[in-house]
């Protein structure tokens, strides 16, 4: 990449922080609403918190309650004011939220046996897919929460899933690096991808796995993200994205997003301009926001100002990012009390950033 290219990319993508929402208790992930007016975040306190971010300052709306454990996955309907959320006890909920009092539409108490890792919604908004350690990929009608399909075959903790841009295919990835591509209409697994380099068996511990799946804008390429682990325990390894040809299953590239201490690629946006925007998190205090193109030797932008970044959301119309990080000094064994002798909890700073040097950025489509 020459200097001119880099300058052009920075002009379009270099982010500047416009605000921070400090979420206490901590949150797992945050997502923009399709209209860009709201930001929703799943919490470790079993709530889904929602902020109106359309004004100068974020203002919080009533939270969605009814979950148990940790709310670990949230998605918005592409057109309706509905939030779908899932928790670590296996429940999925659908809630109408337009900034006022949330209205529960439906819920499935035991959608899975245990921790639902991820949700995704089809581009037409009709189907919701869920992945969990019970080894099943389930598909639900967004209208009423009826299960329309249940696919088995992973036999492992299913950690990630994604609809392709057409909505006709769904890819799911598991803890041991196996990725299955399903035809949504028939439920047939039409292809498997080998992302085994993202997994390691170390001291009886399964380390890594396929933590995220993304398609490029036309679905011709499928990317699997996680870590190339070197060891279990306190995991060390380079945050990694593997890119496959969707049609053939052939691996095309392996892209690193940092050093061993940066560990896991937690979340990623595949921008329509073929720019990969990712966030990483390693041991407490480490982590980066990284921007790079697949064919380049190194990133054109990265920053370590946000520690332990676990979630990244992109809003195309306003060219904004929302990144869930963790406060500095979040770790600590033993007695850690503040100067007043009180026990301090941790929190999740949600960083709001705007990309590009123009204040009125052009609309850009994204495939994620």
């Amino acid at each position: 990449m020459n200097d001119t290219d880099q300058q052009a990319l920075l002009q379009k993508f270099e982010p500047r922080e416009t605000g921070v929402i400090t979420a206490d208790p901590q949150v797992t992930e945050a997502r923009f609403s399709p209209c860009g007016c709201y930001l929703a975040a799943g919490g470790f306190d079993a709530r889904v918190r929602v902020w109106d971010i359309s004004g100068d300052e974020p203002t919080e709306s009533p939270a969605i309650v009814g979950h148990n454990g940790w709310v670990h996955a949230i998605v918005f309907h592409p057109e309706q004011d509905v939030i779908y959320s899932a928790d670590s006890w296996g429940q999925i909920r659908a809630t109408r939220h337009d900034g006022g009092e949330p209205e529960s539409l439906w819920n499935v108490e035991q959608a899975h046996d245990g921790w639902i890792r991820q949700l995704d919604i089809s581009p037409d908004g009709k189907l919701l897919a869920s992945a969990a350690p019970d080894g099943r990929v389930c598909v639900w009608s967004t209208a009423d929460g009826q299960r329309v399909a249940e696919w088995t075959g992973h036999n492992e903790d299913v950690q990630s899933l994604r609809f392709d841009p057409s909505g006709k295919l769904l890819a799911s990835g598991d803890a041991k690096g196996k990725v299955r591509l399903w035809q949504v209409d028939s439920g047939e697994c039409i292809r498997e991808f080998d992302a085994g380099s993202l997994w390691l068996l170390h001291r009886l511990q399964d380390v890594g796995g396929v933590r995220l799946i993304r398609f490029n804008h036309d679905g011709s390429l499928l990317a699997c993200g996680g870590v190339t682990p070197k060891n279990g325990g306190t995991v060390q390894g380079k945050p990694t994205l593997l890119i496959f040809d969707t049609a053939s299953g052939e691996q095309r590239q392996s892209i690193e997003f940092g050093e061993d201490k940066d560990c896991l690629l937690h979340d990623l946006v595949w921008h329509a301009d073929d720019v990969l925007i990712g966030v990483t998190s390693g041991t407490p205090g480490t982590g980066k926001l990284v921007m790079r193109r697949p064919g380049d030797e190194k990133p054109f932008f990265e920053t370590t100002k946000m520690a332990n970044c676990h979630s990244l959301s992109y809003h195309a119309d306003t060219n904004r990012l929302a990144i869930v990080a963790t406060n500095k000094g979040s770790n600590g064994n033993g007695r850690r009390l503040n100067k007043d002798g009180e026990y301090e909890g941790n929190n999740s700073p949600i960083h709001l950033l705007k990309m590009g040097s123009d204040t009125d950025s052009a609309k850009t489509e994204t495939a994620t």
Partner: protein
Amino acid sequence: AMSEFGRTPRINGHIGRDHWPEAWSLAMAGCGLKAGLAVGKTNAQGTFVDTEPYDIGHMFHTWFRALGVNSIATEYNNAGQPLPIAHDDCHAVDEVLA
């Protein structure tokens, strides 16, 4: 079933918890013990014990008593040197004994 320390109430940046020896719990079952009760509690934050705190010495007194061993009168004989089998400053948790 117990561990040597608990885990921090707060979650660290690695989405895990760190060592916390100030308050944690154990579960036990067997002869001489009551069933189906919980003894003691922490504060609302889960950071410190709000009721009478118990240490491993209390547990040894309790276990020996449950087994019918007098934990105060019985001593180890370390080549002629008497050693307590449970900490001198602790006592059995009467609430859990049948």
